[in-house]
């Protein structure tokens, strides 16, 4: 890899166009566990919390299903990294500040704030339980000292404010230090309260709750570039919200048929254009993408553009429809391209060409002959996400066996890396992995039948301007960084 990544002053250098994913020059920065596990371990083993974040620990039985990470997202500067889990909890990590003594520690992320975003609910009218699992987190751009993010479960979106408090007023006249009211008769003097420093406290408060607008399960939220509105999408409808108004939203897409018997497709993901606040896209379970312009009409049921690739008849099987269902759609940072992920491929589309993608990358084509088994064990329904790097030159997505893949769009090279404790040491360069498809298995290759399908990487994130990536593997969060020479 060429080019400076992080200059000593702390401002990241722009990514040069020679950058690519190369031959595996990624190193593991840290592996993070959710804080409850960290505290349990520190009590038992009496280890410094920082060491836990940097060291490798043997397997323990504390991991529960509630700890499974369900979403990962960097904020707009990359200083903060938020994760949501199945238990409805949000954990925010903050990048360690640059320090002269420990230059090598920059790039590590430590826990900044933890809060319970959503709780399980019960809809008595429909007699169904609403899961607390966090489906998506999206950050708002920072406009003051506080940080704002949206988090959503299947039914309710919440706006959270995360702020720091490092000073505390002392010397009240009417209350004592514990906050109890003083007997007015005992007050004989008057004083001005002063602000005194205190230990840094990070608090998260729910500022808005956007509820009762979705009949079906919310799969996406996206903040508009006007920073005043955002959208939430479920299986059949997309709603537009204003951040200030919680008791109503505009319905901008509705694909529910009058007769549910005619239902043939659902909405799977939606996103606003990064620069044009009137434009958004949504993907469907049929493998199509629609681009809509909100200026055209109030209800955007008629798309402005329709992206669909003709089906390859030679690949037809029982499961063709399932594997063509798009699980994620992302605009490039430039706004010129969209990337879609279906079960076996990642595709890049040019907004100006609707009849086929400009690039198609095979993520794990060796699974094509295993579709029936993957249907049986439900893996075929896994929803993988995909991400762009800051310069839109590299795309990344996850796979099974804790593998994740990067594709360099310029050099057309790709690499498979693994996020697991057994195969990586901190600061050591990650070794590229290879899946052996048939015939002789070479040393260091893994055969398709040995893949662990319970270890899937569905959620990844790429720092907006640097080559730092976050990879969620079940209940572990791995941070990898491009090696600084």
């Amino acid at each position, binding site marked *: 890899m060429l080019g400076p990544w992080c200059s000593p002053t702390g401002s990241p250098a722009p990514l040069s166009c020679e950058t690519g994913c190369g031959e595996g020059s990624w190193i593991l920065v840290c592996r993070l566990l959710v804080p409850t596990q960290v505290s349990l371990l520190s009590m038992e083993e009496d280890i410094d919390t920082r060491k836990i974040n940097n060291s490798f620990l043997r397997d323990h039985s504390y991991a529960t299903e509630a700890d499974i990470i369900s979403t990962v997202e960097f904020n707009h500067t990359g200083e903060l990294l938020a994760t949501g889990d199945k238990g409805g909890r949000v954990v925010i990590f903050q990048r360690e500040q640059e320090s002269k003594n420990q230059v090598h520690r920059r790039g590590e992320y430590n826990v900044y704030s933890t809060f319970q975003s959503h709780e399980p609910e019960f809809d008595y009218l*429909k*007699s*169904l*339980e*609403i*899961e607390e*699992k966090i489906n998506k987190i999206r950050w708002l751009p920072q406009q003051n000292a506080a940080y704002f993010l949206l988090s959503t479960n*299947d039914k309710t979106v919440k706006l959270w404010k995360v702020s720091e408090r490092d000073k505390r007023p002392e010397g009240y006249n009417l209350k004592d230090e514990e906050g109890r009211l003083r007997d007015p008769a005992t007050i004989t003097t008057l004083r001005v309260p002063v602000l005194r420093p205190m230990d840094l406290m990070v608090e998260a408060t729910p500022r808005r709750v956007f509820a009762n607008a979705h*009949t*079906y*399960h919310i*799969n996406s939220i996206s903040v508009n570039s006007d920073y005043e509105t955002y959208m939430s999408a479920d*299986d*059949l409808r997309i709603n537009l919200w204003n951040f200030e108004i919680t008791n109503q939203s505009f319905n901008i897409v509705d694909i529910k048929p*009058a*007769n*549910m*018997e*005619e*239902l*043939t*497709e*659902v909405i*799977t993901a939606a996103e606003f254009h990064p620069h044009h606040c009137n434009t958004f896209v949504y993907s469907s*379970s049929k493998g199509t993408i629609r681009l809509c312009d909100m200026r055209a009409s109030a209800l955007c049921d008629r798309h402005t553009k329709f992206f669909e690739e003709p089906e390859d008849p*030679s*690949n*037809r*099987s*029982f*499961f*063709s*429809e*399932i594997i063509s*269902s798009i699980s994620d759609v992302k605009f490039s940072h430039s706004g010129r391209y969209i990337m879609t992920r279906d079960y076996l491929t990642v595709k890049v589309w040019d907004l100006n060409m609707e009849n086929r993608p400009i690039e198609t990358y095979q993520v794990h084509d060796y699974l*094509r*002959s*295993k*579709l*029936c*088994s993957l*249907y*049986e064990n*439900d893996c075929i*329904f896994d929803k993988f996400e995909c991400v762009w790097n800051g310069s839109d030159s590299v795309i990344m997505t996850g796979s099974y066996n804790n593998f994740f893949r990067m594709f360099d769009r310029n050099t057309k090279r790709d690499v498979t890396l693994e996020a697991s404790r057994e195969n990586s040491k901190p600061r050591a360069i990650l070794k590229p992995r290879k899946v052996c498809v048939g015939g002789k298995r070479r040393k260091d290759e893994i055969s398709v*039948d040995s893949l662990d399908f319970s270890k899937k990487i569905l959620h990844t994130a790429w720092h907006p301007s640097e080559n730092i990536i976050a990879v969620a593997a079940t209940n572990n969060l791995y941070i990898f960084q491009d090696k600084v020479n």
Partner: protein
Amino acid sequence: MEFKLEAHRIVSISLGKIYNSRGQRGGIKLHKNLLVSLVLRSARQVYLSDPCPGLYLAGSPVPPPQPGEPAAGPPAGWGEPPPPAARAAWPEPETPPERPAGPDARRAVDAEPAAPGAGDTLQGGEEPAGGAAAEEEEMETGNVANLISIFGSSFSGLLRKSPAGGREEAEAEESGPEAAEPGQICCDQPVLRDINPWSTAIVAF
């Protein structure tokens, strides 16, 4: 023939998924059930369009399937639904000719219809367990045809009589014909009443 058995197997797996989805936390997932229903429909189409071995030999350019050698592919129009008349006239007496060919044909079922020759080694281990069940299911072909037509008719056919949690999907279908017994499937054709493990599960759904 192999395709019919493969389709049969996929139908039973799909029905199991739909049945299990009723108890899932968070309510019925519309997307997943839609995809399962599409698989069910594809499997049904193959099941109903794949001719039985007897018909295969008569004038067909493709040689009859050998054990261990899956056929080159179903007839070109496997994706198209058969005419309704043919479906209604699905003959029951077809069961006896299938049975002798059953064990051999089962061995040959290890590939997707669209990818003949591409073995699915993950299924290898499951063959012995699936074999016994398939043998039992072979006897019930008549019921299978009924069930396939019921579930294949429309997406809502799968969601009729789903529990309260699925009300949001079923809200358009309450005008459909109601069966007298609670818990039975709503359909136009006479509902099967045979007592056997497989169809009992479906009736319960």
